[in-house]
């Protein structure tokens, strides 16, 4: 009985989120369309409640549950809190957008919460199958969310592409996992790790398994050469969903990578380091250079994401505690920047008009100096210019890579960062140096204006005072990985 209690307490946030998702699905049937705000509020309450439970059950120690299939450690708790925070911001940013596009329905909130439950399982899984289950729960919800605006041909096409390529990636991942199982005789992350430490397995099988697993993970992260779905899905999806895919799910994908590579396969680091290195270099080159050619803001952000993933891999490939802490810091910073960036597209969109072309930002400084300033901070943060959070994110991964001895790769990465700066500067140029083409007033709910301001100013504030966030990341990683 006591064991079951421990199990349930460890998984309480997931249980709560799932129950609330079902309640929202049911409540939707009884709520008049005019009162749909209740669903929005219920979803926010769910996030608040989940955050409360996560904090209340938090301990600095590692708790295994369900016969070691599930883990509740500081890394999981911190990542989950970040996921709640970014989902909550995402719901606020998207409310007006989905209302105007007929997606303001119960399904939206239920799917988002189910997707979030999937992410939470990905964060807390300690078994290859648990992790895989979480990933699939997330992916299926995302496919549905992308296609939610069902009369939109572009969105349907994006959903189809996302589904086919996502299924392929899942297949590769499963194949890799099956090889690991064949070699080590277990699917439990800790058992796989200790079996690998003994080192009596057949090396080719392990390496082949690692290749497939890394390929599957790279697909989910969107690293080159597995990036082709990213631009199409980013562009085709309704911006509200792009925001979700582009920021929140990256946190979960990062946790997934940490669980598998840093916890399960750390003995094979020498094998996956090389793969990550190649992917990091290619992602930074292709992401940055292709982004220059884009005229669509969402596509540009997609390529910028690819280059950010490259920088993230820089931290991961160091395969050191310092490297993992830096990449966690990077991904948290990236999620906040991405929320602000896509939030701005949502802010400028209105009924029948998607502000998703670069030229739609023209002269924003004259239409609204405040929002132009917020976007300015976000862009400089993405470019990694101090005093913004993005600078410390880049600084952290570069110092980790340098510590691991990759001096020339670091020099290469900073040269590429200069290329990256160009397309962020171009946005600043459009906002500040050009005359506006469009003079429509920018009207949005006050809570969105306020939170977006806090979000973007937060990038500046955390750029001046990054210590607290660094401490949190260091705490999460150091107390969870041995």
């Amino acid at each position, binding site marked *: 009985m006591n064991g079951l209690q421990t199990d349930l307490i460890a998984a309480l946030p997931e249980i709560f989120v799932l129950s609330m998702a079902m309640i929202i699905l049911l409540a939707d049937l009884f709520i008049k369309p005019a009162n749909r705000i209740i669903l929005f509020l219920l979803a926010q309450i769910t996030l608040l409640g989940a955050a409360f439970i996560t904090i209340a059950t938090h301990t600095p120690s590692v708790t295994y549950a369900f016969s070691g299939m599930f883990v509740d450690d500081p890394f999981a708790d911190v990542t989950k809190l970040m996921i709640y925070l970014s989902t909550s911001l995402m719901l606020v940013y998207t409310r007006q957008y989905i209302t105007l596009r007929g997606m303001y329905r119960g399904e939206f909130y239920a799917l988002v919460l189910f997707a979030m439950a999937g992410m939470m399982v990905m964060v807390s899984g300690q078994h290859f199958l648990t992790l895989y289950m979480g990933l699939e729960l997330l992916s299926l919800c995302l496919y549905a969310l992308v296609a939610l605006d069902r009369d939109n041909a572009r969105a349907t096409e994006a959903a189809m592409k996302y589904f086919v390529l996502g299924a392929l990636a899942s297949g590769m991942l499963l194949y890799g996992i099956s090889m690991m199982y064949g070699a080590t005789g277990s699917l439990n992350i800790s058992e796989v790790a200790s079996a690998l430490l003994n080192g009596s397995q057949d090396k080719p099988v392990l390496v082949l398994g690692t290749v497939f697993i890394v390929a599957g993970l790279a697909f989910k992260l969107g690293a080159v050469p597995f990036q082709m779905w990213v631009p199409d899905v980013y562009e085709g999806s309704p911006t509200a969903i792009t925001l979700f895919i582009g920021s929140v799910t990256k946190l979960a994908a990062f946790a997934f990578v940490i669980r598998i590579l840093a916890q399960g396969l750390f003995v094979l680091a020498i094998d996956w380091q090389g793969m990550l290195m190649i992917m990091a270099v290619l992602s930074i080159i292709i992401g940055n250079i292709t982004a220059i050619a884009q005229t669509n803001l969402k596509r540009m952000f997609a390529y910028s994401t690819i280059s950010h993933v490259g920088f993230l891999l820089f931290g991961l490939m160091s395969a050191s505690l310092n490297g993992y802490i830096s990449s966690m810091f990077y991904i948290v910073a990236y999620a906040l920047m991405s929320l602000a960036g896509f939030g701005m597209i949502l802010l400028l969109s209105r009924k029948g008009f998607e502000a998703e072309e670069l030229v739609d930002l023209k002269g924003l400084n004259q239409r609204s100096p405040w929002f132009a300033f917020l976007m300015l901070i976000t862009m400089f943060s993405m470019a990694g210019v101090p005093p913004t959070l993005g600078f410390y994110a880049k600084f952290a991964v570069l110092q980790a890579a340098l510590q691991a001895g990759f001096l020339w790769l670091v020099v290469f990465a900073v*040269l590429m960062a*200069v290329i990256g*700066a160009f397309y962020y*500067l171009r946005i600043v140029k459009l906002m500040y140096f050009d005359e506006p083409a469009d003079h429509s007033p920018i009207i949005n709910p006050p809570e969105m204006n306020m939170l977006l301001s806090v979000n973007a100013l937060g990038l500046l504030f955390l750029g001046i005072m990054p210590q607290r966030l660094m401490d949190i990341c260091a705490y999460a990683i150091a107390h969870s990985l041995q």
Partner: protein
Amino acid sequence: MSSLPILSLAIWVPVFAGVLVLLTGDDKHASSARWIALLGSLIAFAVTIPLYTGFNFADGGFQFQEGYNWIPTFNIHYHLGVDGIAVPLILLTSFTTVLVVIAAWEVIQKRVAQYMAAFLIMSGLMIGVFSALDAILYYVYWEAMLIPMFLVIGVWGGPNRVYATIKFFLYTLLGSLLMLVAFIYLFYQTNSFEVVDYYRLPMTLPVQILVFLAFFMAFAVKIPMWPVHTWLPDAHVEAPTGGSVVLAAIALKLGGYSFLRFAMPIAPDAAHYLSGFMITLSLIAVVYIALVALVQQDMKKLIAYSSISHMGFVTLGFFIFNSIGLEGAVVQMISHGFISSAMFLSVGVLYDRMHSRQIADYGGVVNTMPKFAAFAVLFAMANAGLPGTSGFVGEFMVILGALQKNFWFAFLASTTLILGAAYTLWMVKRVFFGEIANVHVDELLDINRRELLILGTLAILVIGFGVYPQPITEMTHATVAQFLDHMAITKLPAGI
């Protein structure tokens, strides 16, 4: 010594004033934006004066130090401190900001608050660069300063401003990111970002050369040295007058100052090893760029090239490693700050009236603007290095220093006295003298009281420091001596 955190105030008062100015909002409140900006810049200038009055001239080390833990994870500190080289540059910065605010008073009519705020914030950040003793703190100020400058050139600049400002930003960013890599490398050698810890770190010659080159990329672009100078003429030509003034008077000095603060003392053996290379680049800048300046059609471009040529003197003074050359280089930096501001402001005066910077559009301006012409001729003489103006002192000291090292260095450097006179005076002749060239020149009005105030103040300073440069040399003397002592000791590990 005062207990007030003077350096922090010097940095944050203008930044805070800039934010206040921004809060005045759009151009309906332009006049309150102007007054707040003026008041803010005056207070910011007043705050920096104790740096001079409270300075201990006998001490060559860092004074007015402040230190707090900032980011313990990476052992980064908020550590400020200044020596005899930084203080004159800080005073120059806060003083120039006042001038820029006054110079923009009626000229800038579009988005006034943002313009004023950009300059105030930039001034605080540049003072931060001059006073940071922690590498990351320094880097943050160094990069952050690019953002307002990028906007100033891009928003208020000329027709080709977008090209110029993006070129400026990317050029500078490229150099500085390599410097960041050098900082991180040094961090892993010393486990610290304190500049003084780097001074004590022994390194082998190849490592020193790599570190030096990484810094060189950052600072050579900023100064700018030949052949990475090409962003400067573009940026200067397109920038509004205030932008040109700040670029020439202060931003270029950031590069010069940083050589003395980072590149040379951290890698002294590499500095000696590469001094021939550095001197060659400096002399090319002095001679070749002066020839380039001779053929310019655009007044601002001419002054921009003249700046590069004069900054060649600064780097020449650094790398001949004697005290008169080095002190001359510091004097030259300050003096160039006044003279180039004055030259750009003079061009600004003409541009505001004629909306042209082409030399060919002018002629005989002295007939319609006699008061202005008097000032312009004075500044041109100073730019050419006429004895009695501050331009002469620095150049003369550097030439004397070069003479101690090698006759031919001094010989080549002194050609500037001819070439500088040639391009400056030829421009003055074409613009100011001769017959009135066209009806537009005939309709020119002489300078108003605001312009008289700015140019008059600068004229007093240019002549004042030309006759009596003691305040600068006295202040830098101890620091320069200590610097040369440090540079004389090898940092190569024993036994190699």
